[in-house]
């Protein structure tokens, strides 16, 4: 006998149905008893739903705000991965809700394709392709003031480690110096001669060459390989989803970054919503705070409702409110009132804040219900 047929008639969420089904399968009641149980569950479910008109936003704000006061002010913490710095606690939460375009510690978690994930050497190979290698890491660079030239002595050992060939190196250097100088190769040593007889040009070229990225992705400053269960996972300092997803050996579908704006750009608004929820939950959990996901989901929904990421604050959700009084009550009171006066804006007093300010009943809960009597209509 299957209980699915009984459950099918009730519009319960899938996870609730699954839970009831498991419990029923354990108890194995008769069909009529099972029906009664499911019916009672459905009643309980209905009575647990949020009432229409409930101030869910306020409840969410309080529910996230209160534990927020207990978060540590200590910003840096070595989380999970050794030697990798990640912003945590309140500053991180603010960063998430503000949708910062450049988070203070961008980080990626890169998972690898099956053929690379099992083997440490193969994982290292992928890591080399990702981690930015500067010219100064694989070569000795010196300025010769008398000759007005820069000598670059490639370090064979370092290059072998990185799996980099002389030809690749030459190509990169040639690309970097372009017209301003010329490259001469002597016995495996590169000499860059500046065409213009200027000390400044020479030093500028020198600085440029030192920071020249000869291999890897510019944004990724460091890669750390860690074994997680059966597979090797790469953690990076710095983030560039677009470039990393094109690297051979990377399993793009399971590669994530903590830069929410980047996720929005590469994967769209829905992925950004998921990312906001995941990041907020993990930030709160790491601090040992328990906040119901429903509150965070509501916040994420509000932030993504318009199809673009809006921050919670003056430049986003709160600043785009239609009511002048509601905006003035939040931040920059004088500016808002003055601007509204100059533009001749009208406040229709439809929201909560405005009505509290002028002392009217607010449209929430029972205040949101209006009775309409239809006189003379008989049914």
């Amino acid at each position, binding site marked *: 006998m299957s209980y699915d047929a009984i459950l099918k008639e009730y519009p319960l969420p899938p996870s609730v149905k699954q839970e009831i089904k498991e419990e029923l399968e354990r108890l194995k009641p008769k069909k009529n008893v099972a029906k009664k149980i499911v019916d009672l569950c459905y009643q309980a479910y209905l009575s647990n739903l949020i009432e229409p008109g409930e101030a869910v936003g306020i409840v969410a704000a309080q529910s996230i705000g209160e534990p927020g006061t207990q978060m540590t002010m200590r910003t840096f913490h070595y989380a999970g991965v050794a030697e990798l710095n990640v912003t945590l606690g309140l500053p991180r939460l603010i960063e998430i809700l503000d949708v910062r375009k450049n988070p203070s510690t961008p980080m990626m978690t890169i998972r690898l394709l099956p053929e690379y994930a099992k083997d440490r050497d193969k994982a290292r190979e992928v890591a080399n392709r990702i981690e930015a290698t500067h010219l100064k890491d694989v070569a000795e660079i010196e300025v010769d003031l008398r000759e007005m030239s820069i000598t670059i002595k490639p370090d064979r050992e370092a290059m072998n480690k990185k799996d980099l060939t002389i030809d690749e190196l030459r190509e990169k250097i040639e690309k970097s110096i372009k017209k301003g100088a010329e490259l001469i190769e002597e016995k495996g040593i590169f000499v860059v001669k500046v065409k213009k007889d200027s000390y400044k040009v020479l030093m500028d070229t020198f600085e440029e060459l030192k920071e020249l990225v000869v291999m890897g992705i510019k944004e990724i400053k460091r890669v750390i390989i860690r074994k997680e269960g059966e597979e090797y996972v790469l953690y990076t300092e710095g983030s560039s989803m677009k470039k990393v997803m094109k690297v051979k050996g990377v399993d793009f579908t399971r590669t994530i970054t903590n830069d929410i704006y980047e996720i929005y*750009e590469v994967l769209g608004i829905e992925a950004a919503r998921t*990312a906001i929820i995941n990041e907020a939950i993990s930030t709160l959990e790491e601090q040992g705070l328990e906040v119901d996901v429903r509150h965070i989901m509501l916040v994420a929904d509000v932030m993504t409702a318009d*199809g673009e990421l809006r921050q919670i604050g003056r430049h986003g959700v709160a600043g785009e409110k239609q009511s002048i009084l509601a905006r003035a009550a939040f931040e920059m009171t004088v500016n808002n009132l003055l601007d509204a006066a100059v533009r001749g804006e009208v406040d229709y007093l439809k929201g909560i804040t405005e009505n509290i300010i002028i002392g009217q009943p607010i449209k929430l809960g029972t205040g949101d219900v209006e009775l309409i009597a239809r006189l003379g209509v008989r049914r």
Partner: protein
Amino acid sequence: MVFKGGRSMKVSLQDHVLVPKHEILKEEEVEELLKLLRVSKEQLPKIKASDPIVKEIGAKPGDVVKITRKSLTAGVSIFYRLVVE
């Protein structure tokens, strides 16, 4: 998408773990949905036509996209967004 080594592979953004399933709703389904929710099209949440996933499924402004999310509370939840410019 083309890899550095010249090896090319079809990778769909929708395969990513963070991206839920997006589908374009048919005309009849849209009408049914709006009737059920008692809202007009414009009252639905929006999604930009420039959104990478919208481009991938080829939705045009005015279409309604059905999004089947994995929900932490309900298991599966369905969401609708109107494609806008």
